[in-house]
């Protein structure tokens, strides 16, 4: 008997309720239009209309990954401090089903940032960015969302397992924006950093998303998409493994409530 599917949807619904009841959790989405204004003003002031898609894509990607860090990363931690985690572990539902449900909801909500940024461009600056390769864009976006969710899962697990790791939470956003090539392609980073960033799904994803907005044909689409999906899957596997080990450790040491 498995309770995976109802648990997944129930967790997703619970997360949506959380958003509704505590609008403060949507802070990242409130900041996205500001980042759109900031970044677009730079490209517009520099007279580089060709970079407008960069400036509007970046804040959307930043909002999504930012929510993975600030909200998804909190999920296990919060459940532990309210005693919900302990109760979840006594139910037949697998923890990963509950976790994926919540984080899928967070990721889905974070994609609203795309619309926000497009609107800022259109209404604030009269800049309308067209999607030149819709299929490439859609598929890459799907893989990107999966990667963002996997990032959230991994952080959620690591923030609980690692001692003091959560105190780095606030500090993770900009390093991830930089390594993910959110605004400036990682090719502009020093060589060592570029190599490192290629291990992060987001650097492949942002390059592909930018290419999907440009008129030029997209080179090597499938292998690059595979890189995004593969790295995301790897992160998801790592997250599940850590969460699984955490549950085992919790059962062994009995410190589920407060450790």
């Amino acid at each position, binding site marked *: 008997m498995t309770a995976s599917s109802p648990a997944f949807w129930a967790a997703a619904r619970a997360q949506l309720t959380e958003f509704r009841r505590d*609008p403060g959790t949507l*802070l990242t989405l409130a900041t996205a239009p500001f*980042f759109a204004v900031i*970044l677009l*003003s730079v490209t517009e*002031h520099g007279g580089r209309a060709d970079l407008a898609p960069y400036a509007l894509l970046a804040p959307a990607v930043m909002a999504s990954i930012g929510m993975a860090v600030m909200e998804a990363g909190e999920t296990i931690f919060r459940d532990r401090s309210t005693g919900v985690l302990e109760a979840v572990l006594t139910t037949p539902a697998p923890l990963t089903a509950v976790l994926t449900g919540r984080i899928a909801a967070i990721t889905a909500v974070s994609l609203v940032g795309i619309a926000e940024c497009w609107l800022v461009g259109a209404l604030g600056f009269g800049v309308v960015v067209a999607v030149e390769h819709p299929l490439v864009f859609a598929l890459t976006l799907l893989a990107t969302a999966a990667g963002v969710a996997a990032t959230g899962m991994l952080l959620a697990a690591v923030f609980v397992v690692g001692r003091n790791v959560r105190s780095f939470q606030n500090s993770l956003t900009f*390093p991830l924006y*930089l390594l993910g090539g959110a*605004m400036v392609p990682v090719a*502009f980073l020093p060589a060592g950093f570029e190599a490192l960033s290629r291990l992060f799904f987001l650097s492949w994803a942002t390059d592909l998303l930018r290419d999907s907005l440009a008129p030029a044909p997209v080179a090597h689409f499938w292998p690059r998409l595979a890189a995004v999906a593969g790295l995301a899957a790897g992160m998801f596997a790592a997250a599940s493994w850590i969460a699984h080990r955490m549950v085992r450790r919790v059962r062994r040491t009995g410190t589920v409530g407060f450790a």
Partner: protein
Amino acid sequence: MNAIAVLRQTMWSGWTDLRIVYTPTTWAFGWMVRVLCQVVFYSTLGSLLGDPERTRYLLVGAAVFIAANETMMASASTTWERLSGTLALLAAAPAGMVTVLAARSWFWIATGTVSSSIALLALAPVFGLGLGAGEAAAAVALVFATALTNYAVGLCCGSLSLRFHRMRNVFSNLVLLTMTAFGGVVVPVSFWPTGFQWFAAAFPAVHGLEAVRLAVGGAPAAAVLAAVGLAFATAAGWLAVAAASLWWFQRDARRTGSIDFGD
């Protein structure tokens, strides 16, 4: 009432708070890494545009605004009093809540000055900004002035956060981003319509940043001091609003009973 003693105790309590926020390790490998990444993030925009002049402009703007960023955290730390349940005790204490709340988050001025200065001085050579010793020293002093004056804005957000507790991170973030967008951080203030320019002029950090730009660019001392003067003048206004808002909060809370024991 011995005001000095109250301040000393308050500042000590603020210091112990800071020790909870950061350990030396999390400060160096967490916060400072983020600060450097944030400044690099904005500076590389110049590289993307292929314009070294713009790169230096973005570097100075992003680095100095780290000081604004950190002093805005006074908004959140003001509400820690509420979270720890000590707000009721403060409101009942003879020293009064306003002084204590105004002084308790001072440490952000110190850390803001330090991280902002490190970012500016460490990344200047990387992005081709030549700074002499005198210019560097002036920049650090002016970063301190920026942190100090922007602290008043942080307090103002803090007093709002006390009232609207769940939005505690929202106010400070949105004010910071507003300043970043329209305050001459990434593009000159003159890029924006006149109304926005007037609006931006209300923020002390905008004048503080202008002072740093003038000093680094070798402008006459009088021009720099004029900008600093504007920073302090606007800060005085914000401080007055913050004090009034805290006082108003305390009075209102006594009437409505919205300060709970152990809230």
